[in-house]
């Protein structure tokens, strides 16, 4: 199975590809310690599951303000203030979807049979994923445009044959 550090670098590379190509925001590793919950205040969490030789889920956790900024950039708008929470959630789901697609592409030499679900997004406060037991966690804490913290977490385990 992929080493945790390799997976974390893969997640960061995939996130960079997505944010630089379609969202036009700078994303940098924050290098901070793993976090258990989402940012303070209103937050969104996008998640997407996968199965095959490797199974688990990828989550992206961010504040609502950050999500609005991402959605506005994706849609070519000056501000995300006018967007509905549904539209903002849609954008977060697409970020999760595209990041997982890029990860899948990057690890296809090792796992070429991954099937990915349709993304789901929840909004609220104190959000955190509950992946179950026996999963390895690869977590990347990043900063968008030097302002917004965004956490990518990947919970994964080798599928039982």
């Amino acid at each position, binding site marked *: 199975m992929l080493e945790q550090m390799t997976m974390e670098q893969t997640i960061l590379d995939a996130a960079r*590809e*997505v944010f630089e*190509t*379609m969202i036009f925001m700078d994303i940098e590793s924050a290098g901070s310690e793993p976090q258990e919950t989402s940012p303070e205040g209103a937050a969104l969490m996008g998640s997407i599951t996968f199965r095959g030789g490797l199974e688990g889920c990828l989550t992206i956790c961010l504040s609502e303000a950050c999500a609005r900024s991402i*959605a506005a950039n*994706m*849609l*070519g708008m000056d501000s995300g203030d006018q967007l509905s929470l549904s*539209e903002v959630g*849609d*954008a977060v*789901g*697409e970020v999760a*979807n*595209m990041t*997982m*697609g*890029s990860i*899948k*592409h990057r690890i*296809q030499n090792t796992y*070429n049979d991954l099937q*990915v*679900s*349709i993304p789901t997004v929840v909004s609220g406060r104190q959000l955190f994923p509950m992946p179950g037991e026996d999963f390895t966690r690869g977590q990347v804490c990043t900063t968008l445009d030097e302002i917004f913290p965004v956490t990518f977490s990947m919970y994964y385990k080798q599928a039982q044959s």
Partner: protein
Amino acid sequence: MSKSLMIVDDSATMRKIIMKTVRMSGLEFDRTEEAGNGAEALEKLKSAAVDIVLCDINMPEMNGVEFVKQARQMDCSKNTKIIMVSTESGQDLIDNLISSGANGYITKPFTPERFQEKLTPFMN
């Protein structure tokens, strides 16, 4: 020559993003349609055929693979160019889609240049 475009994706936000990116590519369409899944797209094609369809793969109700197969069996869409737009990038899947009747493939994340490259051959 006037051209028409349909964007098929279950995410309304992604449909807007694709439309924005198509505009940024410099390509112009006289008529644009949207559909939230393959079944809705087929119904719209029966009402009014389009020249080019940009279609996601992973969608509820009817996915992009099934959409391509059924669209190719309908007279109204036999000449429609269908370009898949998806995060899926496995060569086997792409080969399967092309053999089913898809005319091209664009991987997410995408750029305006990628749309220009893939759609321009079908604009004349």
